[in-house]
């Protein structure tokens, strides 16, 4: 391949109706249409999905790993925010 690589895209797949799209990986493609086709070929070969999103990786704004403590530690001592005090009926699969 030449030095000019295709841009990177992040791939999100909805595994079935009612669930959210989940990040499954990334791939290279020349444009969004090609990224969708590649995503279909690479990530849904075994009936993993019913819908695909692709987003150019450059469009993702990510949190800085060094901010981890500032952003996330304060949630640890607030257990009442976790819904662990409820009994979840068996029929509810995707809470």
């Amino acid at each position: 391949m030449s030095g000019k690589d295709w841009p990177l895209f992040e791939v999100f797949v909805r595994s079935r109706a009612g669930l959210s799209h989940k990040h499954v990986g990334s791939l290279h493609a020349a444009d969004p249409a090609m990224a969708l086709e590649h995503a279909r070929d690479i990530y849904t070969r075994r009936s993993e999905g019913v819908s695909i999103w692709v987003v150019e990786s450059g469009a993702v704004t990510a949190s800085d790993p060094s901010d981890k403590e500032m952003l996330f530690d304060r949630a640890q001592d607030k257990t009442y925010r976790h819904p662990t005090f409820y009994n979840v009926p068996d029929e509810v699969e995707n809470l």
Partner: protein
Amino acid sequence: MTAASGGDLFEYLLRLGDTSLVLGHRLSEWCGQGPALEEDLALANIALDLIGQARLLLEYAGKVEGQGRSEDDLAYLRDGRDYRNLLLVEQPNGHYGDTIARQFLYDAFAVELWGELTRSGDVQLAAIAAKAVKEHEYHWRHSSGWLIRLGDGTEESHAKMQASLDRLWTYTGEMFADDDVEQAIQRTGVGPDVATLAPRWNTRIDPVLSEATLTRPVASWMQRGGKEGRHGEHLGHMLAEMQSVHRAHPGAKW
């Protein structure tokens, strides 16, 4: 069931099955050598679709023939002269533009043909077509997208793409030329009149060619013979490689 004689139906199923098998094998030759990892996988996927179709078609052909030949017997133990695939699909992979041109010209035909076959009076063939047509629609999207990218790409990719089209054009006439077998198939409601697919093929490819800034080659002499078993020099080499393991280890299983 169908009123077509077993012989005609057998011949017709070989034409369909061999075309899928030979093109599927050609595409599998790209495995590990695609221009990009993602594209390598895309071609392997298309190859697997085609080989899957070939398995169904050849298995059915073996049943129709009634001499106990399995799909493997038909795929691995026939010589080139017994193959009934279109000449177009046996053409070598060449560079990526050659492969895309071959795929583009065939996919536009396959989408139309297999769409018609979903309405086949032969229930088994109609069921195979229901699966195949969805696959061909995707293949068409893939190959036409690439034709546009390469045709309307750089000066070099444009020139190469045009040369690929010009070179393969002579093999496109065979798709729409019928003979006794296909007339019988048409009479008995098993398959379409292939001549009627030509204008639909044109309608499909012309706008894509113009979007790709490519010139439609001018028809001159059209090659024929693949459907009757008269092939070019390349098929024998391909089959020798494809069949070598089976011939070295007859009946081997894993």
